[in-house]
Protein backbone atom coordinates (compact mmCIF):
# COMPACT_ATOMS: atom_id res chain seq x y z
CA UNK A 1 0.00 0.00 0.00
CA UNK A 2 0.98 3.59 -0.50
CA UNK A 3 1.03 5.24 2.90
CA UNK A 4 -0.53 8.63 3.09
CA UNK A 5 -3.48 10.91 3.45
CA UNK A 6 -6.74 9.67 4.92
CA UNK A 7 -9.36 10.89 2.35
CA UNK A 8 -8.18 8.18 -0.02
CA UNK A 9 -9.58 5.64 2.43
CA UNK A 10 -12.75 7.30 3.67
CA UNK A 11 -14.07 7.92 0.21
CA UNK A 12 -14.24 4.12 -0.28
CA UNK A 13 -15.94 3.53 3.09
CA UNK A 14 -19.51 2.89 1.83
CA UNK A 15 -18.26 0.15 -0.49
CA UNK A 16 -15.74 -1.38 1.89
CA UNK A 17 -17.90 -1.19 5.04
CA UNK A 18 -21.33 -1.96 3.62
CA UNK A 19 -20.67 -3.66 0.26
CA UNK A 20 -22.49 -0.99 -1.71
CA UNK A 21 -22.35 -1.74 -5.43
CA UNK A 22 -24.51 -0.42 -8.23
CA UNK A 23 -26.86 -1.68 -10.93
CA UNK A 24 -27.25 -0.64 -14.55
CA UNK A 25 -30.82 0.59 -15.09
CA UNK A 26 -30.72 -0.62 -18.71
CA UNK A 27 -29.41 -4.22 -18.63
CA UNK A 28 -29.78 -4.71 -14.81
CA UNK A 29 -26.21 -5.98 -14.45
CA UNK A 30 -24.76 -5.44 -10.96
CA UNK A 31 -21.28 -4.06 -10.32
CA UNK A 32 -18.90 -4.02 -7.40
CA UNK A 33 -17.21 -1.64 -6.81
CA UNK A 34 -19.76 0.79 -8.31
CA UNK A 35 -19.04 1.98 -11.84
CA UNK A 36 -19.64 5.40 -13.38
CA UNK A 37 -21.36 3.71 -16.31
CA UNK A 38 -22.10 0.20 -17.56
CA UNK A 39 -19.31 -1.16 -19.85
CA UNK A 40 -21.96 -2.94 -21.97
CA UNK A 41 -24.64 -0.23 -22.26
CA UNK A 42 -22.13 2.64 -22.12
CA UNK A 43 -23.74 6.06 -22.85
CA UNK A 44 -27.26 4.65 -22.50
CA UNK A 45 -26.49 3.83 -18.85
CA UNK A 46 -25.33 7.33 -17.87
CA UNK A 47 -27.58 8.70 -15.14
CA UNK A 48 -29.23 5.28 -14.78
CA UNK A 49 -26.73 3.63 -12.41
CA UNK A 50 -28.42 2.94 -9.06
CA UNK A 51 -26.67 2.07 -5.78
CA UNK A 52 -27.51 -1.34 -4.38
CA UNK A 53 -26.49 -3.09 -1.16
CA UNK A 54 -25.10 -6.54 -1.82
CA UNK A 55 -25.97 -9.59 0.29
CA UNK A 56 -22.36 -10.39 1.11
CA UNK A 57 -23.00 -14.06 0.35
CA UNK A 58 -21.13 -15.94 -2.32
CA UNK A 59 -18.75 -18.75 -3.19
CA UNK A 60 -14.99 -19.14 -3.41
CA UNK A 61 -13.62 -19.07 -6.99
CA UNK A 62 -9.94 -19.58 -6.09
CA UNK A 63 -7.48 -18.79 -3.29
CA UNK A 64 -3.89 -18.58 -2.11
CA UNK A 65 -2.12 -18.42 1.24
CA UNK A 66 0.12 -15.36 1.49
CA UNK A 67 3.49 -15.99 3.17
CA UNK A 68 5.44 -12.99 1.81
CA UNK A 69 3.26 -10.00 2.68
CA UNK A 70 3.18 -6.29 1.94
CA UNK A 71 4.53 -4.11 4.81
CA UNK A 72 1.15 -3.33 6.40
CA UNK A 73 0.24 -7.04 6.49
CA UNK A 74 3.52 -8.55 7.74
CA UNK A 75 2.05 -9.19 11.21
CA UNK A 76 -0.72 -11.37 9.75
CA UNK A 77 1.23 -14.06 7.83
CA UNK A 78 0.35 -16.66 6.77
CA UNK A 79 -3.13 -15.54 5.71
CA UNK A 80 -5.55 -16.87 3.08
CA UNK A 81 -6.81 -14.63 0.32
CA UNK A 82 -9.37 -15.48 -2.31
CA UNK A 83 -11.61 -14.38 -5.14
CA UNK A 84 -15.27 -14.56 -4.11
CA UNK A 85 -18.18 -14.55 -6.55
CA UNK A 86 -21.13 -12.85 -4.85
CA UNK A 87 -24.62 -14.31 -5.36
CA UNK A 88 -25.50 -11.13 -7.29
CA UNK A 89 -22.70 -11.81 -9.79
CA UNK A 90 -19.76 -9.48 -9.10
CA UNK A 91 -16.42 -10.90 -7.98
CA UNK A 92 -14.01 -9.38 -5.47
CA UNK A 93 -10.74 -10.14 -3.68
CA UNK A 94 -10.74 -10.58 0.11
CA UNK A 95 -9.14 -12.44 2.99
CA UNK A 96 -10.80 -15.62 4.26
CA UNK A 97 -11.16 -15.84 8.07
CA UNK A 98 -12.67 -17.96 10.87
CA UNK A 99 -11.64 -21.09 9.04
CA UNK A 100 -8.72 -23.56 9.20
CA UNK A 101 -6.43 -23.19 6.19
CA UNK A 102 -6.90 -26.90 5.38
CA UNK A 103 -10.67 -26.47 5.26
CA UNK A 104 -10.54 -23.88 2.46
CA UNK A 105 -11.94 -25.37 -0.76
CA UNK A 106 -12.84 -23.93 -4.16
CA UNK A 107 -16.63 -23.64 -4.33
CA UNK A 108 -17.17 -23.28 -0.55
CA UNK A 109 -19.98 -20.92 0.51
CA UNK A 110 -18.86 -17.74 2.24
CA UNK A 111 -20.34 -14.59 3.75
CA UNK A 112 -18.84 -11.17 4.41
CA UNK A 113 -17.81 -9.93 7.83
CA UNK A 114 -16.58 -6.49 8.89
CA UNK A 115 -12.95 -6.57 10.11
CA UNK A 116 -9.72 -4.65 10.49
CA UNK A 117 -7.83 -5.01 7.20
CA UNK A 118 -4.47 -3.37 7.81
CA UNK A 119 -2.58 -0.84 9.86
CA UNK A 120 -0.55 1.87 8.23
CA UNK A 121 2.86 1.66 9.91
CA UNK A 122 3.65 5.25 8.95
CA UNK A 123 0.67 7.32 10.12
CA UNK A 124 -0.74 4.60 12.39
CA UNK A 125 -4.22 4.67 10.86
CA UNK A 126 -6.23 1.43 10.98
CA UNK A 127 -8.27 0.56 7.91
CA UNK A 128 -11.41 -1.56 8.03
CA UNK A 129 -13.40 -3.42 5.42
CA UNK A 130 -14.78 -6.80 4.43
CA UNK A 131 -13.32 -10.24 4.91
CA UNK A 132 -15.18 -13.48 4.22
CA UNK A 133 -15.94 -16.41 6.55
CA UNK A 134 -17.63 -19.77 5.95
CA UNK A 135 -21.41 -19.31 5.61
CA UNK A 136 -23.12 -20.52 8.78
CA UNK A 137 -25.64 -23.27 8.27
CA UNK A 138 -28.91 -21.86 9.64
CA UNK A 139 -31.14 -24.94 9.48
Amino acid sequence: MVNGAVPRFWREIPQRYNLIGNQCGVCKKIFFPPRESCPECRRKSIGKMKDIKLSGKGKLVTYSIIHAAPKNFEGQIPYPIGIIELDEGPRLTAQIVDCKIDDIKIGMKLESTFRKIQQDGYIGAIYYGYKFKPLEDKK
Partner: protein
Amino acid sequence: MRDVAVIGIGLTKFGELWDKSFRNLIAEAGSKAILDSGISGKEIDALYVGSMSAGRFIGQEHVGALVADSSGFAHMHIPSIRVESADASGGLAFRQGYFSVASGMNDIVVIGGVEKMTDVIGAEATDTLATSLDQEWEAFFGSTLAGTYAMIATKHMHDYGTTREQLAQVAVKNHANGALNPYAQFKRPISLENVLKAPMEAYPLTMMDCSPVSDGAAALVLCAAEKAKKYTDKPIKIIGSGQASDTLPLHGRKNICIFESTVYAAKMAYKQAGIKPKDVDVVEVHDSYTIGEILAIEDLGFVKKGEGGKAVENKITTFDGEIPVNPSGGLKAKGHPLGATGVAQIAEIVMQLRGEADKRQIKNAKIGLAHNVGGAGATCLVHILEAM
Protein backbone atom coordinates in the same frame (compact mmCIF):
# COMPACT_ATOMS: atom_id res chain seq x y z
CA MET B 1 3.75 1.91 -43.04
CA ARG B 2 7.27 0.67 -43.74
CA ASP B 3 9.25 -2.31 -42.45
CA VAL B 4 11.51 -1.91 -39.43
CA ALA B 5 14.50 -3.99 -38.34
CA VAL B 6 16.55 -4.45 -35.20
CA ILE B 7 20.18 -3.65 -36.04
CA GLY B 8 21.80 -3.56 -32.61
CA ILE B 9 21.45 -5.12 -29.16
CA GLY B 10 23.00 -4.42 -25.77
CA LEU B 11 22.57 -6.10 -22.38
CA THR B 12 24.03 -5.66 -18.95
CA LYS B 13 24.43 -8.65 -16.72
CA PHE B 14 21.24 -9.15 -14.64
CA GLY B 15 21.45 -9.66 -10.89
CA GLU B 16 21.93 -7.95 -7.54
CA LEU B 17 24.36 -5.38 -8.87
CA TRP B 18 25.14 -3.32 -5.78
CA ASP B 19 27.98 -1.42 -7.43
CA LYS B 20 25.84 -0.26 -10.37
CA SER B 21 23.28 2.54 -10.35
CA PHE B 22 20.19 2.97 -12.53
CA ARG B 23 22.07 5.41 -14.76
CA ASN B 24 25.18 3.19 -15.00
CA LEU B 25 23.02 0.28 -16.14
CA ILE B 26 21.05 2.04 -18.87
CA ALA B 27 24.15 3.85 -20.17
CA GLU B 28 26.02 0.53 -20.39
CA ALA B 29 23.23 -1.28 -22.25
CA GLY B 30 22.63 1.71 -24.56
CA SER B 31 26.27 2.13 -25.53
CA LYS B 32 26.64 -1.62 -26.19
CA ALA B 33 23.59 -1.53 -28.51
CA ILE B 34 24.87 1.53 -30.37
CA LEU B 35 28.33 -0.04 -30.82
CA ASP B 36 26.74 -3.31 -31.96
CA SER B 37 24.67 -1.47 -34.58
CA GLY B 38 27.51 0.62 -35.98
CA ILE B 39 25.44 3.83 -35.98
CA SER B 40 26.82 7.08 -34.65
CA GLY B 41 25.09 8.99 -31.87
CA LYS B 42 24.05 11.85 -34.13
CA GLU B 43 22.00 9.51 -36.31
CA ILE B 44 19.59 8.77 -33.44
CA ASP B 45 16.18 10.39 -33.87
CA ALA B 46 14.64 9.41 -30.52
CA LEU B 47 15.02 7.32 -27.38
CA TYR B 48 12.22 5.19 -25.88
CA VAL B 49 12.75 3.83 -22.38
CA GLY B 50 10.68 1.32 -20.41
CA SER B 51 10.86 1.61 -16.62
CA MET B 52 8.13 0.41 -14.29
CA SER B 53 8.76 2.22 -11.07
CA ALA B 54 11.92 4.29 -10.84
CA GLY B 55 9.90 6.60 -8.57
CA ARG B 56 9.50 3.94 -5.90
CA PHE B 57 12.74 2.04 -6.39
CA ILE B 58 15.17 4.96 -6.59
CA GLY B 59 12.97 8.00 -5.92
CA GLN B 60 13.51 9.26 -9.46
CA GLU B 61 10.92 10.22 -12.05
CA HIS B 62 11.58 12.16 -15.27
CA VAL B 63 13.34 9.05 -16.47
CA GLY B 64 13.31 10.02 -20.16
CA ALA B 65 15.51 13.04 -19.52
CA LEU B 66 17.73 11.14 -17.08
CA VAL B 67 18.40 8.43 -19.65
CA ALA B 68 19.18 10.93 -22.43
CA ASP B 69 21.57 12.75 -20.10
CA SER B 70 23.33 9.71 -18.63
CA SER B 71 23.76 8.26 -22.12
CA GLY B 72 25.49 11.46 -23.22
CA PHE B 73 22.75 12.73 -25.53
CA ALA B 74 21.48 15.74 -23.56
CA HIS B 75 23.68 18.19 -25.47
CA MET B 76 22.25 16.79 -28.74
CA HIS B 77 18.72 17.41 -27.45
CA ILE B 78 17.45 14.05 -28.72
CA PRO B 79 13.78 13.48 -27.79
CA SER B 80 13.51 10.89 -25.03
CA ILE B 81 10.28 9.17 -24.03
CA ARG B 82 9.67 7.02 -20.94
CA VAL B 83 6.79 4.56 -21.17
CA GLU B 84 5.18 2.52 -18.42
CA SER B 85 2.92 -0.54 -18.33
CA ALA B 86 4.19 -2.30 -15.18
CA ASP B 87 6.61 -5.11 -16.09
CA ALA B 88 5.52 -4.87 -19.73
CA SER B 89 7.10 -1.39 -19.95
CA GLY B 90 10.03 -2.70 -22.03
CA GLY B 91 7.80 -4.40 -24.59
CA LEU B 92 5.69 -1.26 -24.79
CA ALA B 93 8.76 0.97 -25.33
CA PHE B 94 9.73 -1.35 -28.19
CA ARG B 95 6.27 -1.10 -29.78
CA GLN B 96 6.23 2.72 -29.50
CA GLY B 97 9.69 2.97 -31.06
CA TYR B 98 8.64 0.56 -33.80
CA PHE B 99 5.59 2.72 -34.60
CA SER B 100 7.70 5.84 -34.82
CA VAL B 101 10.06 4.32 -37.41
CA ALA B 102 7.29 2.49 -39.29
CA SER B 103 5.41 5.77 -39.64
CA GLY B 104 8.36 7.45 -41.31
CA MET B 105 8.69 10.14 -38.63
CA ASN B 106 11.95 8.60 -37.39
CA ASP B 107 14.66 6.57 -39.18
CA ILE B 108 16.71 5.32 -36.26
CA VAL B 109 15.63 5.02 -32.63
CA VAL B 110 17.16 3.42 -29.54
CA ILE B 111 14.92 1.40 -27.22
CA GLY B 112 15.97 0.96 -23.61
CA GLY B 113 14.57 -0.89 -20.63
CA VAL B 114 15.89 -0.60 -17.10
CA GLU B 115 15.10 -1.24 -13.45
CA LYS B 116 17.18 -0.89 -10.29
CA MET B 117 15.28 -2.95 -7.71
CA THR B 118 17.85 -3.75 -5.01
CA ASP B 119 18.18 -0.28 -3.52
CA VAL B 120 15.04 -1.04 -1.43
CA ILE B 121 14.34 -3.75 1.16
CA GLY B 122 12.37 -6.91 0.30
CA ALA B 123 8.94 -5.89 1.67
CA GLU B 124 9.21 -2.56 -0.17
CA ALA B 125 9.88 -4.48 -3.41
CA THR B 126 6.82 -6.67 -2.69
CA ASP B 127 4.71 -3.52 -2.20
CA THR B 128 6.04 -1.99 -5.42
CA LEU B 129 5.34 -5.15 -7.44
CA ALA B 130 1.77 -5.01 -6.09
CA THR B 131 1.31 -1.54 -7.63
CA SER B 132 0.80 -3.41 -10.92
CA LEU B 133 -2.42 -4.78 -9.37
CA ASP B 134 -5.53 -2.77 -8.44
CA GLN B 135 -4.42 -0.80 -5.36
CA GLU B 136 -7.93 -0.09 -4.07
CA TRP B 137 -9.56 -3.49 -4.66
CA GLU B 138 -6.76 -6.07 -4.54
CA ALA B 139 -3.64 -4.76 -2.78
CA PHE B 140 -5.69 -2.92 -0.09
CA PHE B 141 -7.05 -6.30 1.06
CA GLY B 142 -3.58 -7.88 1.35
CA SER B 143 -3.12 -9.45 -2.06
CA THR B 144 0.34 -9.49 -3.64
CA LEU B 145 1.48 -10.05 -7.22
CA ALA B 146 2.73 -13.53 -6.26
CA GLY B 147 -0.58 -14.16 -4.47
CA THR B 148 -2.50 -13.20 -7.57
CA TYR B 149 -0.54 -15.60 -9.79
CA ALA B 150 -0.87 -18.20 -7.02
CA MET B 151 -4.67 -17.89 -7.23
CA ILE B 152 -4.42 -18.60 -10.95
CA ALA B 153 -2.27 -21.66 -10.18
CA THR B 154 -4.77 -22.96 -7.59
CA LYS B 155 -7.58 -22.64 -10.13
CA HIS B 156 -5.52 -24.18 -12.99
CA MET B 157 -4.66 -27.17 -10.79
CA HIS B 158 -8.33 -27.52 -9.79
CA ASP B 159 -9.81 -27.16 -13.28
CA TYR B 160 -7.22 -28.96 -15.42
CA GLY B 161 -5.37 -31.26 -13.05
CA THR B 162 -2.11 -29.34 -13.46
CA THR B 163 0.30 -30.61 -10.80
CA ARG B 164 2.64 -28.93 -8.34
CA GLU B 165 5.49 -30.85 -10.00
CA GLN B 166 4.59 -29.55 -13.48
CA LEU B 167 4.80 -25.97 -12.18
CA ALA B 168 8.18 -26.73 -10.62
CA GLN B 169 9.37 -28.27 -13.89
CA VAL B 170 9.08 -24.82 -15.53
CA ALA B 171 11.64 -23.44 -13.06
CA VAL B 172 13.91 -26.48 -13.48
CA LYS B 173 13.90 -26.09 -17.28
CA ASN B 174 14.53 -22.35 -17.15
CA HIS B 175 17.43 -22.74 -14.72
CA ALA B 176 18.97 -25.37 -17.01
CA ASN B 177 18.78 -22.83 -19.86
CA GLY B 178 19.96 -19.93 -17.70
CA ALA B 179 23.07 -21.91 -16.80
CA LEU B 180 24.17 -21.41 -20.43
CA ASN B 181 23.48 -17.66 -20.51
CA PRO B 182 26.38 -15.40 -19.52
CA TYR B 183 23.97 -12.52 -18.74
CA ALA B 184 21.76 -14.57 -16.38
CA GLN B 185 21.35 -13.84 -12.68
CA PHE B 186 21.34 -17.58 -11.82
CA LYS B 187 23.76 -19.76 -13.73
CA ARG B 188 23.14 -23.04 -11.94
CA PRO B 189 20.78 -25.91 -12.65
CA ILE B 190 18.26 -26.75 -9.93
CA SER B 191 16.25 -29.87 -9.06
CA LEU B 192 12.52 -30.43 -8.71
CA GLU B 193 13.14 -30.85 -4.97
CA ASN B 194 14.81 -27.42 -4.80
CA VAL B 195 11.59 -25.83 -6.03
CA LEU B 196 9.12 -27.94 -4.04
CA LYS B 197 11.03 -27.64 -0.73
CA ALA B 198 11.77 -23.89 -0.99
CA PRO B 199 10.04 -21.55 1.48
CA MET B 200 6.44 -20.79 0.55
CA GLU B 201 5.86 -17.42 -1.13
CA ALA B 202 2.11 -17.68 -1.77
CA TYR B 203 0.54 -21.14 -1.76
CA PRO B 204 0.86 -23.11 -4.02
CA LEU B 205 3.94 -21.17 -5.23
CA THR B 206 7.28 -21.35 -3.42
CA MET B 207 10.03 -18.75 -3.70
CA MET B 208 11.54 -20.88 -6.46
CA ASP B 209 8.40 -20.49 -8.57
CA CYS B 210 9.00 -16.74 -8.56
CA SER B 211 11.37 -14.63 -10.62
CA PRO B 212 13.96 -12.84 -8.47
CA VAL B 213 14.42 -9.18 -7.58
CA SER B 214 16.96 -7.95 -10.12
CA ASP B 215 18.92 -4.99 -11.41
CA GLY B 216 19.62 -4.71 -15.11
CA ALA B 217 19.14 -2.97 -18.41
CA ALA B 218 18.76 -3.85 -22.07
CA ALA B 219 18.78 -1.80 -25.27
CA LEU B 220 18.04 -2.21 -28.98
CA VAL B 221 18.62 -0.07 -32.05
CA LEU B 222 15.76 0.04 -34.58
CA CYS B 223 16.16 1.22 -38.14
CA ALA B 224 13.98 1.47 -41.25
CA ALA B 225 14.44 -1.93 -42.93
CA GLU B 226 15.36 -0.35 -46.30
CA LYS B 227 18.42 1.25 -44.66
CA ALA B 228 19.30 -1.60 -42.30
CA LYS B 229 21.78 -3.37 -44.62
CA LYS B 230 23.93 -0.23 -44.55
CA TYR B 231 24.72 -1.05 -40.92
CA THR B 232 24.57 -4.82 -40.57
CA ASP B 233 24.61 -8.07 -42.57
CA LYS B 234 22.05 -9.58 -40.21
CA PRO B 235 19.15 -7.21 -39.68
CA ILE B 236 16.22 -8.84 -37.88
CA LYS B 237 12.87 -7.65 -39.16
CA ILE B 238 9.81 -7.00 -36.97
CA ILE B 239 7.02 -8.89 -38.73
CA GLY B 240 4.28 -8.71 -36.09
CA SER B 241 3.40 -6.50 -33.14
CA GLY B 242 0.38 -6.91 -30.88
CA GLN B 243 -0.82 -5.31 -27.68
CA ALA B 244 -3.96 -5.84 -25.62
CA SER B 245 -5.44 -4.96 -22.23
CA ASP B 246 -7.74 -6.63 -19.71
CA THR B 247 -9.34 -5.79 -16.35
CA LEU B 248 -6.79 -4.45 -13.87
CA PRO B 249 -7.88 -6.78 -11.02
CA LEU B 250 -7.79 -10.52 -11.68
CA HIS B 251 -11.24 -10.92 -10.12
CA GLY B 252 -12.76 -8.82 -12.93
CA ARG B 253 -12.29 -11.64 -15.44
CA LYS B 254 -14.75 -14.38 -16.34
CA ASN B 255 -12.06 -17.02 -16.74
CA ILE B 256 -9.23 -16.85 -14.19
CA CYS B 257 -7.10 -19.33 -16.19
CA ILE B 258 -6.83 -17.32 -19.42
CA PHE B 259 -4.89 -14.14 -20.05
CA GLU B 260 -7.19 -12.70 -22.72
CA SER B 261 -4.65 -9.91 -23.18
CA THR B 262 -2.18 -12.55 -24.41
CA VAL B 263 -4.80 -14.16 -26.67
CA TYR B 264 -5.68 -10.83 -28.29
CA ALA B 265 -2.13 -9.46 -28.56
CA ALA B 266 -1.02 -12.76 -30.13
CA LYS B 267 -3.91 -12.76 -32.59
CA MET B 268 -2.92 -9.24 -33.69
CA ALA B 269 0.77 -10.16 -34.08
CA TYR B 270 0.16 -13.48 -35.88
CA LYS B 271 -2.24 -11.77 -38.29
CA GLN B 272 0.25 -9.03 -39.17
CA ALA B 273 3.03 -11.59 -39.61
CA GLY B 274 0.78 -13.90 -41.63
CA ILE B 275 1.92 -16.92 -39.62
CA LYS B 276 0.49 -19.53 -37.25
CA PRO B 277 1.87 -20.60 -33.85
CA LYS B 278 3.41 -23.73 -35.44
CA ASP B 279 5.62 -21.52 -37.65
CA VAL B 280 7.47 -20.11 -34.63
CA ASP B 281 10.92 -21.59 -33.96
CA VAL B 282 11.89 -19.96 -30.66
CA VAL B 283 9.91 -18.21 -27.93
CA GLU B 284 10.63 -15.99 -24.94
CA VAL B 285 7.62 -15.82 -22.58
CA HIS B 286 6.85 -13.89 -19.41
CA ASP B 287 7.49 -16.47 -16.66
CA SER B 288 7.55 -14.04 -13.74
CA TYR B 289 5.86 -16.97 -11.94
CA THR B 290 5.99 -20.57 -13.18
CA ILE B 291 2.22 -20.64 -13.75
CA GLY B 292 2.73 -17.65 -16.08
CA GLU B 293 4.73 -19.78 -18.52
CA ILE B 294 2.03 -22.47 -18.54
CA LEU B 295 -0.66 -19.85 -19.28
CA ALA B 296 1.56 -18.28 -21.95
CA ILE B 297 2.13 -21.43 -24.00
CA GLU B 298 -1.63 -22.10 -23.89
CA ASP B 299 -2.75 -18.54 -24.65
CA LEU B 300 -0.17 -18.10 -27.44
CA GLY B 301 -1.66 -21.19 -29.11
CA PHE B 302 1.28 -23.61 -28.81
CA VAL B 303 -0.83 -26.09 -26.82
CA LYS B 304 -4.55 -26.35 -25.99
CA LYS B 305 -5.97 -24.63 -22.91
CA GLY B 306 -5.35 -26.81 -19.88
CA GLU B 307 -2.53 -28.80 -21.48
CA GLY B 308 0.34 -26.48 -20.56
CA GLY B 309 1.38 -28.46 -17.50
CA LYS B 310 1.43 -31.70 -19.44
CA ALA B 311 3.45 -30.05 -22.24
CA VAL B 312 6.11 -28.98 -19.75
CA GLU B 313 6.20 -32.44 -18.20
CA ASN B 314 6.57 -34.01 -21.66
CA LYS B 315 9.54 -31.69 -22.34
CA ILE B 316 7.95 -30.09 -25.41
CA THR B 317 9.30 -26.68 -24.32
CA THR B 318 12.88 -27.64 -23.51
CA PHE B 319 15.91 -26.45 -25.44
CA ASP B 320 15.66 -29.36 -27.91
CA GLY B 321 11.89 -29.79 -27.67
CA GLU B 322 9.24 -29.17 -30.30
CA ILE B 323 8.80 -25.51 -29.31
CA PRO B 324 11.75 -24.23 -27.24
CA VAL B 325 10.53 -21.72 -24.64
CA ASN B 326 12.82 -19.34 -22.78
CA PRO B 327 16.25 -20.48 -24.00
CA SER B 328 17.62 -17.39 -22.19
CA GLY B 329 16.56 -18.87 -18.85
CA GLY B 330 13.44 -16.73 -18.81
CA LEU B 331 12.61 -14.23 -16.11
CA LYS B 332 13.06 -17.01 -13.56
CA ALA B 333 16.77 -17.67 -14.14
CA LYS B 334 17.93 -14.75 -16.28
CA GLY B 335 16.39 -12.31 -13.79
CA HIS B 336 13.50 -9.86 -14.00
CA PRO B 337 14.49 -6.20 -13.81
CA LEU B 338 10.93 -5.14 -14.60
CA GLY B 339 11.32 -2.42 -17.22
CA ALA B 340 14.30 -4.17 -18.83
CA THR B 341 12.57 -7.51 -19.32
CA GLY B 342 10.56 -6.85 -22.50
CA VAL B 343 13.61 -5.37 -24.22
CA ALA B 344 15.91 -8.19 -23.05
CA GLN B 345 13.46 -10.81 -24.38
CA ILE B 346 13.68 -9.26 -27.85
CA ALA B 347 17.48 -9.06 -27.56
CA GLU B 348 17.51 -12.83 -26.91
CA ILE B 349 15.27 -13.48 -29.93
CA VAL B 350 17.60 -11.32 -32.08
CA MET B 351 20.64 -13.31 -30.88
CA GLN B 352 18.82 -16.56 -31.71
CA LEU B 353 17.80 -15.36 -35.20
CA ARG B 354 21.28 -14.05 -35.93
CA GLY B 355 22.69 -17.43 -34.91
CA GLU B 356 24.76 -15.79 -32.18
CA ALA B 357 23.26 -17.44 -29.08
CA ASP B 358 26.33 -19.62 -28.58
CA LYS B 359 25.69 -22.61 -26.26
CA ARG B 360 21.95 -21.93 -26.13
CA GLN B 361 21.51 -21.54 -29.90
CA ILE B 362 18.29 -23.13 -31.20
CA LYS B 363 19.15 -24.82 -34.51
CA ASN B 364 17.76 -23.19 -37.68
CA ALA B 365 15.76 -20.56 -35.79
CA LYS B 366 14.12 -18.37 -38.45
CA ILE B 367 11.09 -16.90 -36.65
CA GLY B 368 11.02 -15.87 -32.98
CA LEU B 369 8.33 -14.56 -30.66
CA ALA B 370 8.56 -12.47 -27.48
CA HIS B 371 5.71 -12.28 -24.94
CA ASN B 372 5.76 -9.59 -22.24
CA VAL B 373 3.05 -9.25 -19.56
CA GLY B 374 2.24 -6.35 -17.25
CA GLY B 375 1.15 -7.26 -13.70
CA ALA B 376 -1.29 -10.16 -13.62
CA GLY B 377 -2.21 -9.91 -17.30
CA ALA B 378 -3.90 -6.50 -17.57
CA THR B 379 -1.40 -5.64 -20.33
CA CYS B 380 0.29 -7.92 -22.84
CA LEU B 381 2.67 -7.33 -25.74
CA VAL B 382 3.58 -9.91 -28.36
CA HIS B 383 6.28 -9.34 -30.97
CA ILE B 384 7.32 -11.59 -33.82
CA LEU B 385 10.68 -11.21 -35.56
CA GLU B 386 12.33 -12.85 -38.57
CA ALA B 387 15.83 -12.90 -40.01
CA MET B 388 15.94 -10.84 -43.25
